[in-house]
């Protein structure tokens, strides 16, 4: 995903803001990393450039 898209992303469950952590990034996009919702305590992974924002239960 591209950094420019972050402002229009939100948590699928509470619609709150997400905090981006980058593990790997090339010149155009973030390839590996995560998007964290602090309100829900859920971390959504970014794998091969695609964020997995399927709603899920709290990670334990």
């Amino acid at each position, binding site marked *: 995903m591209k950094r420019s*898209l972050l402002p229009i992303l*939100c948590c*699928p469950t509470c619609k709150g803001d997400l905090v981006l952590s980058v593990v790997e990034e090339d010149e155009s996009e973030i390839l590996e990393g995560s998007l964290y919702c602090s309100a829900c305590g859920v971390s959504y992974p970014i794998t091969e450039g695609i964020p997995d924002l399927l709603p899920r239960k709290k990670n334990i």
Partner: protein
Amino acid sequence: MDEHEIRRRVTEKYGEIASGKTCGCSCAPGCCGQETTAASVSLGVGYSEEDLSAVPNGANLGLGCGNPVAIASLKEGETVLDLGSGAGFDCFLAARRVGKAGRVIGVEMTPEMLEKARKNAERGSYANIEFRLGEIEHLPVADSSVDVIISNCVINLSPDKPAVFSEAYRVLRPGGRIMVSDIVITRDLPDPVKRLADAYTGCISGASIKDAYLDCIVSAGFLDIAILDEKTFPIDFITSDPEISGLSPDLLEGLKESVKSIRVRAIKPR
């Protein structure tokens, strides 16, 4: 089938289509057992030859009832959200219309479809498309951030259609529009059809009665709701099923007439 089971079946079926294990006879009228290709299905629902040649190979799986009117309405610079973007066909067409200043976001819940879309995007080097794994009933998209929502024969597959339309309303900017094509029915389906899982994943038994479908759009808050197009949808892949072909001729005839493909436009008021 409960909600969870419906999601599981739909994800499984469309995952198989994406990976080529089964043909996309789902929303594609009568592909199985006939000399029909994804391209001919798409031409039949109103896409142009130019549309087909404009997208990366593999992006058009011949699914859907077709949403070329929605694509044609897009303007340079708009932000577009595609609900159930599949292998990315409509996203690629939309990306060409909105240009570099615009962007297209595809939300899809089937990982195999998304993987295919991502590879297609790389092949076509589209810089203004983003795909994400997500559910259309729980959009991972911020409030009032999108100009246009498009969707091609997907919402019928959702077990919670009111949630889809209220999420669509939430993410649209005031003045934004939703332009969807979908399957609806004009009367209740016979029980054997309702029980057929293929009829669900094939976009038929999950379809709502037309008035109820439009009510979902009204209830979400949309105005200026217009049906731009309505056609009888061919359902040979259902009526040829042994469970169904034994129905009385009257029931069969009624069934054939009751499945419609519609294109709907609605506006979020300013």
